[in-house]
């Protein structure tokens, strides 16, 4: 590939991603409204789609206030980290054959590393705000994300064993015959749960817990800095959905009547919808219950899954 082609892919991915993240404002609000027996935004433009524009404009023009008691530079840095780390993760996702920003042979590890960085944005944002609610949110966020980091990493190791590669293109290719969701159902479920916890969406939105901590770690943020957390969250959902599709649902693979890239997006949107449905239906567990659930149920489960997968892989080999 030429340099120009690379640049076009990078710009294309960035363009599509940012638009999806913004578009999710509308998608989420319309879907929630549908499930909650109400209308949702339906005034601006066809089906209310221009709410995206209105919301973005609003965020840009709101006063970008930095509280005088905050730690200024860290306060500014925190929202940048979340967007940065999520965007970096997209680098390794193969959208279709040939459409990938960086074909890394340790792609999966890179993804795990980048999503671990996300926790810094919560902790630093909560700490720099110098607000008690933000601090509580940050502490909750830190312990939740560190706990679920572990299971997320372990849950995909079964996939790595089966495909014998950390490269995501190889992983997709290895699902030519059968999707890994069939051979790794436990891995899929745990990865998805960990993914919800990583993106701290309801039911695991414990760091922000609207009815308890108001907005938790980003309580003091306004304007576009808040917008960054907002966009970061939507991109996080997209990322986890895209990763789920790549690792367990055959990535771009699908019957030939649709182009591969469309298959990829369709599957991803299915999982984005699932994220929103979860938000519409489930209550929030308590913070210690979530952590306990992680360490006492998910960790043993994921380890057993790993052992069984390993044993079967060895048995098949011999």
């Amino acid at each position: 590939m030429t340099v120009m082609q690379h640049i076009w892919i990078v710009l294309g991915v960035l363009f599509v991603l940012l638009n999806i993240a913004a578009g999710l404002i509308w998608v989420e609000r319309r879907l929630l409204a549908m499930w909650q027996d109400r209308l949702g935004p339906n005034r601006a433009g066809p089906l209310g789609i221009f709410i995206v524009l209105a919301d973005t404009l609003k965020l840009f023009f709101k006063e970008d206030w930095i509280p005088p008691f905050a730690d200024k530079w860290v306060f500014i840095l925190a929202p940048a980290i979340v967007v940065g780390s999520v965007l970096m993760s997209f680098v390794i996702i193969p959208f279709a054959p040939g459409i990938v920003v960086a074909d890394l042979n340790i792609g999966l590890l890179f993804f795990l590393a980048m999503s671990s960085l996300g926790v810094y944005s919560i902790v630093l944002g909560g700490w720099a705000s110098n607000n008690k609610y933000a601090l509580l949110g940050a502490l909750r966020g830190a312990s939740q994300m560190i706990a679920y980091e572990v299971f997320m990493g372990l849950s995909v190791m079964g996939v790595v064993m089966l495909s014998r590669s950390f490269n995501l293109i190889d992983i997709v290719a290895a699902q030519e015959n059968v999707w890994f969701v069939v051979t790794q159902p436990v891995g899929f479920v745990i990865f998805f749960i960990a993914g919800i916890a990583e993106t701290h969406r309801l039911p695991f939105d414990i760091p922000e817990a609207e009815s308890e901590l108001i907005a938790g770690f980003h309580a003091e943020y306004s304007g576009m800095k808040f917008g960054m957390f907002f966009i970061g969250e939507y991109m996080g959902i997209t990322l986890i959905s895209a990763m789920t599709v790549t690792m367990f649902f055959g990535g771009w693979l699908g019957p030939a009547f649709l182009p591969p890239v469309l298959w990829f997006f369709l599957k991803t949107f299915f999982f984005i919808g699932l994220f929103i449905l979860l938000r519409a239906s489930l209550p929030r567990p308590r913070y210690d219950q979530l952590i306990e659930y992680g360490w006492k149920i998910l960790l043993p489960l994921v380890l057993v899954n790993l052992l069984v997968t390993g044993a079967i892989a060895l048995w098949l080999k011999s």
Partner: protein
Amino acid sequence: MQDANSILGHLQYRFGNDAFQQQPTVDGILTLWVGKDSIVSIIQHLKSSHPFLYDLCGIDERDRARKENMPPADFSVVYHLFSFKQNEFIRLKVALFGEYPTLPSITSIFKNANWYEREVFDMFGIRFDGHPYLKRILMPTTWKGHPLRKEHPARATEMGPFQYWDEKDDIEQEALRFKPEEWGMQQHSDDADFMFLNIGPQHPGTHGVLRIILQLDGEEIVDAVPEIGFHHRGAEKMGERQSWHTYIPYTDRVDYLGGVMNNLAYLLSVEQMAGIKVPDRVKVIRVMLCELFRINSHLVWFGTFAQDLGQLSPVFYMFTQREKIFDIIEAICGDRMHPNWFRIGGVAQDLPNGWEVLVKEFVDHFPKELKQYNNMVLRNSLIKARTKGIGIYTLEEAIEWGVTGPGLRACGFEWDFRKKRPYSGYEMFDFDIPIAQNGDCYDRSVVRVEEMRQSLRIIEQCLKNMPAGSYKADHPLTTPPIKKHTMQDIETLITHFLNVSWGPVIPPGEAMSCIEATKGANSYYLISDGNTMSYRTRIRTPSFPHMQMVPYISKGYTVADLLSILGSVDYVLADIDR
């Protein structure tokens, strides 16, 4: 009266004949004046038979004209004790003299006396010796004067222009600062500093302007201090300047989710004093409306409770359902939340044509919906994990703290004032009292959901058996009176004219009614001095003692649990602050 006499005899035997002076009251509650030196020992003694401090309030007696059958007094403090076993109230009064009198505190006997005594101090300037923390509770600490004293103005126009300059802003801000030392709280334990977290007055989880200050060790609640009074609108003071009739709309807004149920509590007292017996049709209409409002209030609770626990959707379904009930209420009363629809001696208008269709549609439709809601919320395992075993209190603790309503029934005690002390014709209806055993957040919720089903049963019976007859009592004090004969009969014309222009003159006396409101026992203790306005209006609301109990039941739990507890207590800020 047999019981009442035997109690009086028993008390006289124990404390001597001279220790008591009996005052006859319209409501038939045994009312005894006792000396301020013996009040503590008498209440201590009575606690074995009357273990429930129902209410405690003050009265400024200085302007009272009709003081027959009562000893002279400048102020008095009134204790309402209740016995579940004998199902009766006893009212003790202490006469006090002087500008700012004192009397001994009973906080060592009843835990819930604490806030009540603070309220009396706040409103009258009466001091209680031995009270652990006698500070203002409803008024701002910077307030001058004690509002329920007769010399305190009731209208802003009597008080001179209100000014708020910068320095005053600083003073008010400083007064709101929480100082843990004042509450006897440690700033740090042996190995860690405590965090003091201010929840409210603006917080999505408090459902109103309530401030709770938490002393936190990590996320664990060491202690909590609710600060109330942000919603205080002087409902009791307003009772002293509104005519008996024009006070009705104010009652609507006390428990603002209870709507006309507040009217009922107030009117039962007024009608007792006026000696009005309402026709059966009025009773049944009132019961039907009250039960519709009970379902409404519980639906709001149900939705917001789920929302507090992070479940976003139920509140929308429940509010949709609530709108359907409001449609019925609007068709009947002409308004939704605060219809102000009951009148002295009746209701404002007869039921509209076709009301049966609306109610029938709802009665047929609602059980299915309710079942869905129940599956969605209470059968959800995450909700169970968040509420089971959280915020537990035992029956003894509930009685000690003055808990009534679903919170009491969740402790396994089958006590419902509609059943045990029927009013407004509840004895004619067939319904059960739902109870639960554990007294935790989950059980309180289960009881409320079951109560909605029972309310529905009552509404169904109202629908099937609505008596014919007048929607107003044929009594001169009925307001506004029946107008039919005004053009033929001078007596009726005069009564009509007076009741509409002045408002009715209620004969002198005292009466208290007690109803099972949406959140617990609600009472209006009214004193008439033979005037067009009440001399003293005391509103006993259920949320007040419930909120007082919150610190006690939330200790040792986490911040997230506090939200479950607050949700399950189901309070309304206006019901706390009045």
